[in-house]
């Protein structure tokens, strides 16, 4: 059963220095901005962060990187037109980068949640990103060995939670949320609304409550929860 935190600050208060933190979102869609800001305010440092990108503009993850709180980032696409804080940290040698093809990143996160010890994927075979890695020819095709990405925490944004922690998402803001919730020891979720247990249709739950540790309601600017999936 999840805890319902009264504020983003209290939701992330347990995050210690040197933790590995999965952060959901693809661009701004699904980015748990208020949780990231609370993490910034909380002061934890030496973090390993897993996100598709490495921060945009002057907000959220970009500020965590600017403040040198991220020791290492595991991502697929760090360089963007407005990734200047990452660019500066990287060129200064002050952040470690593990670059992973996006689908391997997603599958490695999924593997962690699913208890898979490692897997062979064709993606990246024969490229500089997998140099020196274990390879195997399977059905005539080259594959590389990839390992799960386990984490201490996941910070996620969903549309609606019920009090049992079941989650639904909205459109392409779903992206990394479900797999990150399952891969972390503790998953902290910001939602637009919290409804009573029983108000989400069991057929339509995307993340079962077993994967959710802490919920915090943030008054979101996105359309209301009532729009999707709530039966009452």
């Amino acid at each position: 059963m999840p805890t319902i935190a009264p504020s983003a600050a209290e939701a992330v208060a347990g995050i210690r220095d040197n933790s590995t933190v999965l952060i959901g979102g693809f661009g701004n869609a699904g980015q748990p901005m208020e949780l990231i800001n609370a993490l910034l305010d909380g002061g934890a440092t030496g973090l390993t962060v897993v996100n598709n990108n490495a921060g945009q503009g002057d907000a959220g993850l970009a500020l965590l990187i600017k403040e040198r709180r991220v020791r290492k980032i595991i991502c697929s696409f760090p360089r963007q037109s407005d990734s200047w804080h990452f660019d500066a940290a990287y060129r200064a040698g002050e952040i470690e980068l593990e670059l992973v093809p996006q689908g391997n990143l997603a599958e490695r996160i999924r593997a962690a949640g699913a208890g898979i010890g490692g897997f062979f994927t064709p993606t990246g075979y024969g490229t500089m990103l997998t140099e020196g890695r274990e390879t195997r020819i399977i059905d005539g095709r080259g594959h590389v060995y990839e390992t799960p990405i386990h984490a201490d925490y996941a910070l996620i944004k969903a549309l609606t939670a019920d009090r049992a922690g079941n989650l639904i998402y909205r459109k392409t803001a779903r992206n990394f949320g479900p797999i990150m919730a399952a891969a972390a020891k503790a998953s902290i979720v910001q939602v637009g609304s919290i409804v009573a247990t029983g108000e989400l249709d069991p057929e339509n739950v995307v993340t079962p409550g077993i994967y959710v540790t802490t919920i915090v309601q943030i008054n979101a600017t996105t359309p209301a929860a009532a729009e999707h999936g709530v039966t009452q």
Partner: protein
Amino acid sequence: MNTQEKGARLGRDELAALVASDIKAGSYVNLGIGQPTLVSNYLRPEQSVTLHTENGMLGMGPEAHGDDIDEDLINAGKIPVTELPGASYFHHADSFAMMRGGHLDVCVLGAFQVSATGDLANWHTGAPDAIPAVGGAMDLATGAKEVYVMMSLFAKDGSSKLVEACTYPLTGVGCVTRIYTNDAVFLITADGVRVRETFGTTLAELQQRIPVPLQAAPLR
């Protein structure tokens, strides 16, 4: 010694009630087919225990009867069940990912034998003419944070089912953390097998019949 010695050997339902009372509030639990299913009768609502069934559901309710029977809503034993508020459905790969990924707090299983190091044998008698069938037994044994076994302590021939090494084919290696029997509760620890409590017998009496070194557990 610290082991609690209680008055009488536990009956089937008393044992189920004991297991139920040992499950921490808020736990996610899978109850195996057979004797473990009885545990659900003794879970109290205020424990807020969520039951998982490996055929794709969290939030499983009690067995369905009469008009509540729905052929699309069954448990892993193919018994019609019901749905509780807060339930969710998911496909088989997601369901077993939930187990294998270590997300269930407790799994309660039956057993033919358990070894002193927590090896479990519960799927196959090893009889040469038996048709083998494993189902989800190995997944359940491997995945949960805690694996509780419920079994009779002695076979019909009087031999101990808690053994030094299993003679039946294994279900999982080093996976069992507790054994609940009508005669005693055993904890499998890194330091060996500890007896938490006995029912109508003593640790000394048990030690005479069980070929595994037993120690008293510290009081809870």
